């Protein structure tokens, strides 16, 4: 069984307890304008181009079988022609062209994850599956979680909440120790308009999950200026969480991570977003809405 992995990040400290390895699976059904990992939205491997590294040697053009290399202008790849074969990335001396997304055999991936087992053990850490949306590759995710649990590794998932509930419950849930569940907005129409889907499924999944695993769920709310960060929205989310008896939440301050990554893929993120990151300590005004619920630092 193979999974398409965008990135593996070791020594991750903000994706659950302890020192962790975070696996970023490729593919997501939403398209949030502020996405931190826009390179992981597509379900296919993609080539990213980092113009500042390029020495204009032309080696990429020489090897591309699809004539998809543009040697002039800011873009290097004609994404309409590129098949993602990866030959250019292998020959580019400057790693200006980089393949995002690589298929891993399950065991191959497990071997990489187990390399840091001693770091997990000394810190109470483990493995976190993130993305993209890891449940998009549900079968692979389920097998991976089971494998890790059998190895005694603490597991965490970061999910946007859109997953087929029954299958998730029957194949993944038992092998999960912690669920980081994203909640962006209560108004479904807004949800549909801004991130591409309504939020009914998300809210249902959350309330079901809380029935059995309330202690293992942390609801995470991205605080995005001009989008989610309105008193109305945050207030509604807080009320909803209280209604559902959510135990723990955390606020994810906005960071313009995604902008440069999107640019490398030839995609432009909405320029309505600020260029500056939001400081963790600027979250105070939003925290007040959540009195009664335990806050966890991301």
């Amino acid at each position, binding site marked *: 069984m193979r999974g398409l992995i965008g990135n593996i990040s070791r020594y991750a*400290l903000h994706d659950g307890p302890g*020192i962790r390895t975070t696996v970023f699976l490729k593919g997501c059904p939403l398209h949030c304008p502020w996405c931190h990992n826009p390179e992981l939205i597509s379900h296919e491997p993609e080539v990213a181009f980092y113009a500042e590294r390029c020495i204009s040697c032309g080696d990429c053009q020489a090897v591309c079988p699809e004539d998809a290399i543009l040697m002039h202008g800011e873009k290097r790849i004609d994404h309409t022609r590129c098949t993602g074969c990866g030959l250019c990335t292998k020959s580019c*001396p*400057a790693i200006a062209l980089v393949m995002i997304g690589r298929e891993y055999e399950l065991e191959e991936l497990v071997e990489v994850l187990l*390399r840091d087992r001693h770091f997990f053990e000394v*810190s109470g850490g483990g493995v976190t599956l993130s993305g993209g949306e890891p449940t998009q590759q549900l079968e692979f995710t389920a097998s991976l979680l089971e494998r890790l649990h059998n190895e005694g590794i603490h597991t965490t998932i970061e999910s946007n909440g859109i997953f087929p509930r029954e299958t998730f419950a029957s194949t993944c849930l038992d092998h999960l120790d912690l669920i980081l569940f994203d909640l962006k907005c209560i108004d479904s129409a807004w949800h549909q308009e801004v991130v591409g889907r309504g939020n009914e499924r998300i809210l249902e999944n959350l309330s079901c999950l809380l029935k059995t695993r309330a202690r293992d769920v942390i609801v995470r709310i991205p605080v995005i200026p001009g989008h989610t960060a309105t008193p109305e929205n945050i207030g509604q989310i807080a009320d909803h969480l209280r209604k559902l008896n959510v135990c723990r939440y955390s606020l994810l301050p906005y960071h313009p991570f995604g902008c440069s990554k999107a640019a490398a893929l030839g995609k432009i993120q909405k320029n309505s977003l600020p260029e500056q990151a939001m400081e963790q300590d600027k979250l105070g005004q939003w925290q007040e809405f959540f009195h009664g619920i335990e806050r966890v630092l991301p």
Partner: protein
Amino acid sequence: MTAVTLDEIGLKEFTLESLPRLKELRTQYFSRQPEICIERARYVTQYLREHDDSAHSPELRQAKKVEYFLRHKSARFHDRNLIAGNTTSKALGAPLFPEFFALTLWPELETVSDRKKNPQKLTASEASELNLEIFPFWMDKNVLEVTRSQFDNPECLQLFEKLVFFIAAKAGCISHAVPTYTSMLQYGLSGLIKKAAEYEEELAGVTDADAEQKADFFRAVQISLQGIIVHAEHLAEEAKELATVADDPKDAAEFTAMAAVCRSVPVGPATTFREAVNAIWICQVGIHAENINMAMSPGRLDQILYPYYKQDIAEGRLDIGRAMELVGCLWLKIADNVTMVPEASEELFGGAGTVPAITLGGVGKDGEDAVNDLTYIMLRATELLGIRDPNVNARYDYEKNSQDYCRRVSEVILNTKSVPAFFNDKANITALCGQGERLEHARDYAVIGCVELASSGRDYPASSSIMMNLAAALEMALFGGKRPITGEEQIGPATPDPSELRSFEEFWKIFKIQLDWLIEQAITLNEYMGAVHQEMMPSPLLSALFIGPMDKGVDLIRGGALYNSSGATHIAFADVVDSLSAIEQTVFIEKKYTFNDVLEQVRGNFSGQKGVKMRLYLKNHTPKYGTEAVIARKNAHNMIQHLFEKYQSHTNYRGGPYHPSYWTMTNHAGLGGISGALPHGRKAGEVFSSGITPVSGAAPELTACLNAVAELGGECVPGCWALNIKYTPESDVAIMAERFAQTIEAYFRAGGQQVQFNIMTYEMLLDAKKHPEKYPELMVRVSGYSAYFKDLNEMMKDELITRTQYGLDDGRVVPLPPEAKRRH
């Protein structure tokens, strides 16, 4: 049973403000400029000229020479330090050892005081004495010249003198040892002398040559120890004199107390903590009458001094503040000397202290937690003083020592930004047991100088005997036994042109031919010099402070110790492994380049468009040591394995094994600066990576890097290594210390033997290079020891700046700022 009774192990209530004496001494220390002290050179020369009897055994001649010097050595008190005794006549002095390299100062007598980099003051009259009376006597009598004449200027010596292949440390010292002070403290020097006299007497009736030699050795022990006793008496007299002339009754009382201490110890057994501390220091001073001040390491002082501390505390004679003051005074005493460095050597050794190592914590001989209150007092003193010497090291057994201890050591590192270094008990004890040391002896290991290990007072390790430049062997393999820096001269065996090779294994074989040839040369020279040392520089005084020589009646230099290893360290390990992997990958696996392509670019220093492209490809697309790339791991492992087997196939002149190790002092910068381009995309003149540390920028992930290094540890690295890791400082020390400690524990569990840190950013170091005046006390870890950043040469500064910096927040490499890249 735990010996920790402190409520707060950080001892935060003690500060330089609450210990004003330490504050004052520390300020004085930083304001002092080193001065060259010619006393030792003067008196040993005088002795040899006027009193030496060449009919005597080498041990006896050495003992008399040492005793003569100690008898004439001045007894001075330079400041309000509570401990009596100085290494030299100067407050911060560089003693001269004409037996070794002192004569390199000859051409610089007039400039050494005023040279730009690290000047060492020398008065005009002393310069003239050296020029006219002392140096001429030694022209043909130092170790190097004696070796030359005795062995007919051998090839290995000529090779060493080129300085770019290997360094034979015995031309400059042996030192590098950890004596044991336990029996000295228990019986006093008079007790040790009595024992030697009894042994001598037992031999009186026996008439064979062996017995005569032994009796001579015991006589030599008595004479040399007597020298220390006489010097202590002189210290007592001077202190008494100062007490009578002191204006302030408080000062007078202090001098009177010191006079009393010097009368009691080290001649007699130590009865208090203060006496024990001072006895150890006076013996260190004595040792340096005989052996040069290079890495003579006091060892596990938190263990040795603990019984005295405990008793004084129990009897109400001592409190923690006073104990810390005495420890701080001892640290500052240990820092009272530097080595004489001629300008020509600044490149290779610039900024180095004398690296006397102190080892704290870990387990005891019984394998149980040995951390005690004194461990924490010494850690706090180290944290408060922030000085280069002593080189403080912390042992850590992750199963036996508490996590509080690990966190506390981590906190000290974060606060000092660089010390102590961390040593893994499990891996290091395994490594020593692999060398046939008994378990309880291995457990009692201490660090010598930079990183090498020795069972305290049992192993006379002559660590640092050989410093081998692995890049030299690689260049010789690439160019048929020649190196670009030595031109057309055929140095090593004429191995085949690599462009004719069909497999990587063939190249690996050629590399080994060159490497082994160099190792043979280095070992041959070490053996020659060992023989010269046996005739010229035995160590009867040091022998008395070891376990073994007194039982065997044999001096350390003839194999008197229980264990008798020789250390051989290696420079450019990571660079050479990466070059081998780059060749294997691009020439033999991918066949992207021919060997000739690579050689052409290496010769041309990757110039021109083609060169730039190839260099980037080699840097970016070949397997790197410090990642988990299979080929890189294989080549690193093979290198370690090969060196281990090669050295272990030799036995040294004292009957012990050669221990390979991996630390580089500043040699990786100096030797890198004069080496040509290499196949992993390193341009000519770029510094090599330090110790066992991966090439800067080659190991992007912290955990992968630590794993890749750790898996090399254990039995094949009996001499240990220096791994340098640079972390970005964070504002919250407590949170950082927690992660820091966890990271170290994981690295140790994976087998890592040692790690040392610099907690600083590229920007800060760049600023310190630009504005040295703003950072007069900035201390950095080099490779196994600490130095003041301002004292380092420009290359070494750049090496520190460009070292990979990891964020402890995400384990990622922090990108190098453009300003730091602009060097080339």
